[in-house]
């Protein structure tokens, strides 16, 4: 076992676990952070989408040993804090549009949406239908239409 240190939702944490355990299991099974969900374990369904240093990543496909002590991991639980509010504008949009059905995929959807909006802004443009088409997160309840509407609203309210 090795000591693994990284920043989780703003706090430096250290956990004893082998290097090759994927970050998703470190979060869920060892740290009790259950916002990121399991849906496939092979970076296909994207239910575990979280952020690393402000960009979307899938903890099911990253070895904990590959995290550096200064890496900032943000899960859905830590998203509001990144804007210093009770809710991130994307979460508020999700509530306003009543997006969730079973809700299992929604933490991942929201984290993906925030990263996508930021990415298009880095590219100096706003989000398009084509960008929405490239979102890979599965919603097995099929509430894709409301996800699209909520992202547009959330994007408008993101600083």
């Amino acid at each position, binding site marked *: 076992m090795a000591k693994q240190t990284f920043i989780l939702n703003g706090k430096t944490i250290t956990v004893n676990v*082998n290097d*090759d*355990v*994927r*970050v*998703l*299991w470190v979060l*869920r*099974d*060892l740290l009790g952070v*259950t916002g*990121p*969900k*399991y*849906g*496939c*374990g*092979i*970076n*296909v*369904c994207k*239910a575990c989408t979280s952020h*690393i240093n402000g960009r979307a*990543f*899938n*903890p*099911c*496909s*990253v070895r904990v040993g590959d995290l550096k002590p200064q890496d900032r991991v943000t*899960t*859905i*639980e830590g998203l*509001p804090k990144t804007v210093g509010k009770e809710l991130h504008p994307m*979460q508020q949009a*999700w*509530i306003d549009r*009543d*997006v*969730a*059905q*079973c*809700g*299992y*995929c*929604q933490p991942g959807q*929201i984290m993906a949406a925030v990263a996508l909006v930021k*990415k298009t802004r880095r590219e100096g443009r706003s989000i398009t*239908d084509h960008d929405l*088409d*490239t979102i*890979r997160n*599965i*919603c*097995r*309840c*099929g*509430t*894709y*239409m409301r996800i*699209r509407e909520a992202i547009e609203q959330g994007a408008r309210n993101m600083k």
Partner: protein
Amino acid sequence: MSPSAQDHQPESTGTNPGLSRRSFVGYVIGGTTLVAGADFALGAGPAAAGGIPSAPQIPELYDLEDLQTDSAAPTAGLITVKIHPDGTASFAIPRSEVGQGITTSTAMILAEELDLPVSKVHVTLAPARPELLLNQLTGGSNTTVSTYTPIRVAAAIAKGALLDAAAIELGSVVTRLTSHEGIISAPDGSSVSYGDLAEKAASSQTKRVEVQLKDRASFTIIGTPRNRDDARDAVMGRKKFSMDLDVPGALPTMVCRPPTLNGSPRKLLNKGAILKMPGVRNVATVETGVAVRAATFGQCIDAIRAMKVEWNKGSVEGESDKTILARLRKAEVPLAVPAVPILAKTVEADFTFMFRSSAALEPNCAVADVRKDKATVWAGLKVPILAQQNIAKALGLPDDAVKVHVVTSGGSFGHKLFSDAAIEAAKISQAMGAPVRLMWHRADEPRQGRLHPMVTSRIRATHLAGQVLSFEQRNTSVVTDFSHGLGERLSAMTAELPAGLGAMGLSQSIFALTQELPYNFGAVTQLLDETDERFNTGSMRNIYSPDTTVANELVIDQLAKQMGMDPLAFRLKFIKSDIVKEALQKVADEGNWGRKMPAGMAQGIAVHKEYKGCTAVLVEIDARDKTVNRDIREAVTGPRVTKAVMAVNVGLVVNPTGLEAQMIGGFSDGMALTLTSSCHLRDGHFLEASWDNYFYTRQWNVPPSMEVHIMASDSDQPGGAGEAGVPASAAAVACAYARATKTMPTVFPINHGTISFKPKSFIPPVPVSPTNGLKLTY
């Protein structure tokens, strides 16, 4: 979605003022705070009396909704609404919340009758309640249909007791009091809150009480849009699913499963080595495979991949889609030759619907803590009473030694009617002597989990002189498993069923109870034959209707073409029911039916009638090469539905926001059934192992434009919503595709012939988790 999408209820006509309103009986239950109860079977109407005339089909008079509602009648179990000193009300619904929104809609129904803000009504999921006998099954879009009356009665009795207590408290009489948002006021301006009355209104003994329910005309909550009660928890990552529960000692557990369908383990050859792997605590061989319990699921996956297991053969060794289809063909009963005039023309069609996976995004999972003399299980279960009985049987414990908690599910779609994971978890916990948090790997789902069976549907229709003379449909299917309890409910009801049904087998009866061709087509027969019990099957967001509706509506387009009529005009001419016609006309108007489209693009239109209501769907599809082959990284693209317009009539609407959500989701499912999602059986196993093999609807398939119109209804009864959106959506997409490509598809989904992925390994049965995630950030 346009804001106009929700065409709300019209001003209600209420009940006929000339008639006195019906009273219901309920109880104030003895206790220290106010508890009101009602028989959960209330509101179940008597079955249609007398024989069934030949013209109307069975569902027009008595359908699966009636069956499920009526079969509750002999049960004596009460449901109870409790009023707390903090002014809130609580109710544990004996149904399962799987995303369909019933906790929200139930809180609305209770709040309406209680005159309490919805936010003060807390609805939780009841654990298995054996005393409810058969009446704890969530399925068939039946929850609101069957619970609407009893929960209102319980709420009305609670409010009555509050008013009685308030009259004493305020020195007034009940008839002069008014209740509003949890406060009861007297004409002199004095008032008292429900919280203050909760204990005063309690009764020392149980009393029988008679009440009347509110008129629809006075509703202020039912029929108004309301967001989900768990929306905030869901978006904050706080909503707890089974695998998020903190049960002490319940470590991650997974199963190494056989390489072929329903195989079984003979021997684990390297148990010692597996037990030495990092994090691994226990290994146990059970009927379904070799279970491993470890500190993390990742270490379970590693252990499964390292296991060397000798396997017994599976249930369909060597078989493939082709051999199963050949078996179905053999079981097909010839269509009857209809007695029609010799000059009548015939339309014949023969469709095949492949195996499909009903798996939700939350895989099969359960937490189990089995001790020597008792067991506790937590899982998303739609039939918890049967789960409790089956778990007790599997463990060799009495039923009452097993406590079964119902946890909100991450989706169901029929999958959670079965308690496969709960039973398996209990067995593993018993074998290991330790609590377990069992989760199926995604790869286990399509390969060993429940599938919707392969089915063929043959249709022969005849017409002459502008009239359809006969319409015969004969489905032949791999057996659908009904061991989740609907069967028991049906057999309990056999004597009460309409004439003719009792003589049928179980699946034939359910087929007959659900299938209603809503057209005047002369002699209509729809029958089901089944064969082959070797697969793990189940219902999938409806039982038979998506397949039969696709088949029917495609043939209806063929009939229209042969008879020289427009598909819309043809349907409007032959549809029997006004509500179906109105819904169809609505989507035709809103969707601009008949507008000119470029070659390779087309509109399609379809209807479906079930669940005490109906749906109509219009779509536009783009099947041009440049669209079909559009480039999305590692995606199956195919034809794109560019527009969808839905209209739904479910009678009395409780929550239009939730109803619209169910229609949106139903559309995504229906489109996938027609275009993209299926499982391929080859050499005794299914090839699919994850979402990159099983092509459920993704963002790149979603129509850029979509509208849902809720049809006004003056009905006093709510219908079903969860499954209602699927059949007409699947059918409209199929009809549009046929018109765009000028070829009627006969195998579904249309892409089944192409295997667009490299199958993942069968030994080991689960794929390795990637390590390149940091290279794929965005």
